[in-house]
């Protein structure tokens, strides 16, 4: 799979099919990027389960944090990796073990070997992207900040992504 370029159709499908996200490296600190992403994704209707050994047992944005992926009692549709590229290796192996269908590495995070292992195990891998940014882009919210969404449409409503569209053009006004 080409990891320099992902089609909008693929990203849309992932964001539509996903309901529960395990966020590895989620921070309890409100000005960290992972906290931003978690809060945003929650507001779009996703359940986000924080994974962070330092926060295990505490609550972040209302959700109990776990020390590792294997401790999560619920089914996880996507593992979102907010750690560096090297750490993404063993986390990916753990994500394969728990059978996560999608493994998503954040902006700046790339681990080709791990991606290969995950793909061989049947998972879909996205690297060097942020699900918050992709959700915002595909739902025209990123455009509000002058960001090039790459989406053109002559339709009044866009094909939206995700379980709920609070705050997106597509639902708020209808």
């Amino acid at each position, binding site marked *: 799979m080409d990891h320099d370029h992902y*089609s*909008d*159709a693929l990203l849309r499908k992932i964001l539509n099919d996903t309901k529960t996200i395990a966020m590895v490296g989620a921070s309890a600190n*409100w*000005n960290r*990027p992972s*906290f*931003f992403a978690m*809060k*945003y994704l929650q*507001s779009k209707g996703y359940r986000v389960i924080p994974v962070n050994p330092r926060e295990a047992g505490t609550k972040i944005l209302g959700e109990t944090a776990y020390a590792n992926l294997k401790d999560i009692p619920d089914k996880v549709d996507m593992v979102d990796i907010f750690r560096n590229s090297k750490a993404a290796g063993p986390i990916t192996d753990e994500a394969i073990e728990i059978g996560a269908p999608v493994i998503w590495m954040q*902006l*700046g995070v790339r681990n080709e070997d791990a991606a290969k292992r995950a793909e061989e195990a049947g998972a879909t891998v996205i690297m060097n992207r*942020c699900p918050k*940014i992709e959700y*915002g882009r595909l739902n*025209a*919210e*990123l*455009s*509000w*900040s*002058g*960001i*090039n*969404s*790459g*989406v*053109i*449409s*002559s*339709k*009044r*409503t*866009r094909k939206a992504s995700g379980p709920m569209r609070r*705050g997106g*053009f*597509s639902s708020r*006004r*209808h």
Partner: protein
Amino acid sequence: MSSTPEQPDEQPPGDDDDFEVYGFETLAIHAGAAPDPTTGARTTPIYATASYVFDDVDHAASLYNLQTFGFIYSRLTNPTVSVLEERLAALENGRGAVACGSGHAAQLLAFSTLLQAGDEFVAARNLYGGSINQFSYVFKNFGWNCHFVDPTDPENFRKALTPKCKAIFCENLANPGGIIVDIEKVAEIAHEAGIPLIVDNTIATPYLCNPFDWGADLITHSLTKYLCGHGNSLGGAVIESGKFDWAQNDKFPALSQPTESYHGMTFYETFGDFGFTMHARAVGLRDLGPTLSPFNAFLIITGIETLGLRMERHVQNAQAVAEFLEKHPKVDWVSYAGLKSSEFYDLAQKYMPKGPGGLFTIGLKGGYDAGVRMVEACELCSHLANVGDTRTLILHPASTTHRQLTEEQQRASGSGPEVIRLSIGLETASDIIRDLDQALSAA
């Protein structure tokens, strides 16, 4: 993105909605502008509102913390203005754009994001005169020091660099004189120094040249000129390529270090390849305030829809007028990069194969007095200080915009006493030629 009109036809048809498949003309009409979701209005509505309601206090907090996307207050974002911004980002094949009240405001936003008091930058000396003023005086008061260099040899930029330099700035097609800068070489020099190249693409426009393809990192625009195209509104923009690594050194703390006024949030880390755009908006527009009005944004959006068509004709007309003037007995020289006689002809072929724009200068054999007589004798061409209008515009810099300068300073900036600047419009070419011919007979 493809910038040539031929390419889209070669793309296979299909339902892949990725941007690459659209040509320049399509993006100029559609990028950023889906129908209004509430009413179905097909052209972009003018959202004349200062502010926007919050859903609840938590929503407001998320917006203020930049944790979610949305509208707060029109000094920062406005739905009409954001259509223009996304369109510009698409046309320049960039990642994001911030629009603002004028081209000068765009330069202010760009430099205020990159520079701190005591910092320096290098700029081409062949710039729009107003930019030379901005960089020389008011920027100096901010503690930003500019070194001007002759841009015709790219090595001059390298020679002027100091460890305090945070950027290189040039106009790829310089106003007024038909000078083209070898920006691919200048970009290499900037990148070796770990700093961005900022290109003012106002006169070339994204239809004729895509500076990001040649290594530029930021593009500034005076939208007042060809993008608006009808001489009816001021506007500006900064566009980010998304390719520059702001954390490669410690030169850009505004982007790579925690921002105090956002509770220690780090822009580059949080927003990645559009971190510059977010900072230029959330700090630059918020704190400096040079916001674009949604009314002007609407006029500029409408202008951009025909940018490709207009630039094609501006170039055709400019070529015809330049060829006529080159043979005219009262004209000493014509500085238009579309003429084989121009020393910039080869660079024009490389950077602007569709033509080197519609703006150029000529030198009159009769000097200052002939210049004055010529502009006063025009009946069709308008005697005024602007460029990039549908109308042909004529100016004698030495008696107007540059009259404060000594003759030596005038000559150095390409505006000696004998110089006439022409911004060729979209009238019938033979009518423009006839008017200039009769004006020259008075000169």
